């Protein structure tokens, strides 16, 4: 879906990104934060993972399930209240939640009452994770990685403001690397796969053991056939290591997960983040064909397969055709940089919200206009501060104050002067 806003936002936004406590959408959330900042928006983050140890401690209690349920409910209420408090002090134009963000329905209703725009990027398969039915209507905008029938389903539960927002890559992170010889040896192979051991993958990869095949990631235990291919003892692979694996492998396998082991190539609709990340790295991938894949990539920008025999044939072919691998990977990278970064996604989301929410965001006076009559020395130092905080020239003075409040530790003279000025106005009036 192409979104054409009637009135695109004319000023940088203040966005509060609410991360999940844990899980796959956590990294997506962090990429969103970077992307929003790169677009010139003022971003604050609710670091829900910092609360995760408390949640784990509750789970480790030896108490009845009824008591545990009450405790977990109380815990989530506290976290939600913390998010609300953050909203009260940061006054964002938009609260952006990632899937599984711990924002409860009561808080979402309060935010709606307060007029704060909310959006969720539901980076999950709606057929498997069905909890969206409960809370999707409580968000003002709902971004999804699948199309119909999900749009129709959302309409049925009372969420008409849904936008298709496929996953993406962060080109500052997912990029070609010059690897050391040690890294090449550690992370390199003819064939690799990085990801969790879903049933379809376990079945499929047993057919690949004759290759120089390295398997990376978790949940592969209990499979003696694949055991000798599993790297680093099956521990969790960091995002930095992922990028090294992508760069070091001749062929990166990208088989979308499925809980079914009967159909190894599931032919689902949405495209996983690995597809974009591999392409952004300029790495060659063999990816299973997905319903929505060719809406985003041409057939010469990715190498695909539609069955296990097709996969085996293409592995053999591409292992011996390095030039073709390089060309396809290069085209894939160009496509991602042009259309499929998180910055593109965030811009699409913002434009969508603006198109559905007349008058959003509330206009604010530019800092430059506010400072017009300031004493020269103060003005010069404030302009330098805007630059140092990487704030665009269109930012409002209120945003500058909010950016200074996000600093921690000792403030500089000019940062202190900004807060002093703000407090002076609160105490003595608007002059």
């Amino acid at each position, binding site marked *: 879906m192409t979104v054409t806003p009637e009135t695109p936002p004319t000023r940088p936004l203040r966005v509060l990104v609410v991360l999940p406590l844990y899980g796959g959408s956590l990294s997506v959330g962090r990429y969103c934060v970077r992307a929003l900042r790169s677009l010139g928006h003022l971003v604050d983050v609710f670091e829900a993972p910092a609360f995760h140890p408390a949640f784990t401690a509750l789970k480790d209690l030896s108490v009845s399930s009824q008591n545990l349920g009450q405790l977990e409910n109380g815990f989530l209420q506290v976290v939600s209240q913390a998010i609300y408090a953050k909203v009260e002090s940061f006054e964002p134009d938009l609260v952006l939640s990632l899937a599984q963000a711990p924002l409860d329905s009561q808080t979402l209703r309060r935010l709606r009452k307060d007029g704060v725009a909310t959006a969720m990027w539901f980076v999950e398969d709606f057929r498997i994770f069905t909890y969206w039915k409960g809370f999707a209507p409580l968000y003002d905008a709902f971004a999804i990685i699948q199309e119909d029938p999900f749009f129709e389903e959302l309409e049925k539960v009372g969420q008409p403001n849904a936008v298709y927002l496929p996953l993406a890559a962060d080109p500052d992170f997912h990029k070609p690397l010059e690897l050391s010889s040690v890294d090449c040896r550690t992370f390199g192979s003819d064939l690799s796969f990085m990801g969790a051991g879903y049933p379809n993958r376990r079945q499929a990869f047993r057919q690949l053991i004759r290759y120089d095949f390295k398997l990376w990631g978790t949940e592969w235990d209990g499979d003696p056939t694949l055991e000798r291919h599993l790297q680093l003892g099956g521990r969790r692979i960091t995002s930095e290591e992922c990028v090294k694996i992508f760069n070091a492998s001749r062929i990166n396998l990208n088989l979308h997960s499925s809980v079914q082991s009967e159909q190894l190539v599931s032919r689902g609709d949405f495209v996983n983040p690995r597809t974009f990340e591999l392409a952004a790295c300029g790495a060659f991938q063999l990816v299973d064909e997905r319903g929505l894949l060719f809406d985003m990539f041409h057939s010469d920008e990715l190498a695909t397969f539609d069955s296990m025999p097709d996969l085996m044939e293409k592995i053999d072919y591409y292992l011996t055709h390095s030039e073709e691998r390089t060309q396809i990977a290069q085209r894939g990278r160009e496509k991602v940089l042009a259309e499929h970064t998180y910055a593109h996604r965030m811009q699409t989301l913002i434009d969508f919200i603006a198109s559905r929410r007349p008058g959003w965001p509330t206009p604010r006076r530019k800092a430059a206009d506010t400072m017009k009559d300031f004493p020269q020395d103060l003005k010069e130092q404030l302009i330098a501060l805007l630059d140092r905080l990487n704030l665009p020239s269109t930012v409002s003075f209120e945003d500058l104050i909010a950016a200074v409040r996000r600093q921690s530790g000792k*403030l500089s003279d000019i940062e*202190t002067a900004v807060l002093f000025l703000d*407090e002076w106005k609160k105490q003595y009036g608007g*002059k």
Partner: protein
Amino acid sequence: MPDTPAQRHLVIQLARFGDLMQTKRLMATLMADPGLEVHLAVDRSMAELAALVYPGVVVHALTAHASGVGTAAQAAAANLPVFATLRDLDFERVYNLNFSGLNVAVSGLFDPAIVVGYRLEHGHERRGLWQDMAMRWTRYRRFAGLNLVDFWGLFAAQPVTPGAVNPIAQRGGKGVGVVLAGRETRRSLSPGVLSTLAAAVTQGIRAERVVLLGSKAEQGLAKEILSVLPSAIRAKTVDRVGLTDWSGLIDELTGLDAVLTPDTGTMHLAAHLGVPVHAFFLSSAWCWETGPYGMGHRVWQTAEGCAPCLESAPCPYAVKCAAPFAARDLVRHLSGNAAFEIPEGLLGLVSGFDPLGVVYRPVLGEDPLAPRRLKFRQLIGSWLGLPMGGDPDHELACELFEEQDWMLDRGVLPTDLFEFMKNSERDQA
């Protein structure tokens, strides 16, 4: 070899005249430490006075009061060089005294870990446990008062003893000073009442001179008072209202026999100089919070059930608490006539000390809240490690202590309790 550089401590006091004077116990504590270089940040209008009353202290003048300042940006611009100086001074500790956004903003110049009191953390105001407790006891103002001088003094881990703050008040032979009005007119007596009381005190202590004190804004009031003073008193009255700068005011106060005043900065300055104060506390003025500090002062405190009220709220009772100050019995008493009865709705108190700080003991009239007030002080004092005596009070403890005080690591207690207690015991002796 150069001497070991002194440690620098900074006190930020951006409020007004009275507040600057009530910072005395904290300032006296810091100034008594030979290893400290003491700095004080005040509003520009207070800088001269600060240097006079706290000699040897490095005073930093900030623009924090709006009068005479055009815009917020001009204030911020004026402060930029001062901010730079303060930031570069590498303070070991900063005492930030006022619960105000401006103070909190200034504290942003320093590592929050060194700021005692109100500080900036993660862009927002945070305060210590001591300051939090004070917020709690303001819910029980009628009996839970702690003098502001002691409250701020106890920002320091080992404050000087209460008796070491101000000299014992004693007559100096230079007559009676009369302060015409406080900042809040509702706290001040009418010209007719004040002139009657001034005449009575002058007669009672057989003073040979009366001096009227106040700001330029009160010059009209001075003329009014002069016009109603008995002619014998008027003949020995000098009108210095609006004619004194800070140093002139100190000169006028020094050596007086007594100062008659509502709750004012001048009252605290007189106490600082050891001049006996006769203070009139009515309306929102509450001596247990802001009474004259030191031994030998007298306070006439309204005892109405609605006191202390809020300055910001209009009085629904036509300021009835002012009426007892016009009673003939009070005039009789002040003029030295032993035959009198304390007017209803008024308490006569004299200042003294307990281990926690200054107290006001009722000598005329009955203070029904005295036992509760004592309980409060025992609770707070024992929490600070002071030998206060008394039985523990569970209900009061539930009101003033909260579970997060001890369950969560958030408070700052005096670091050397032993030293603190030793000082207090010495003071008691």
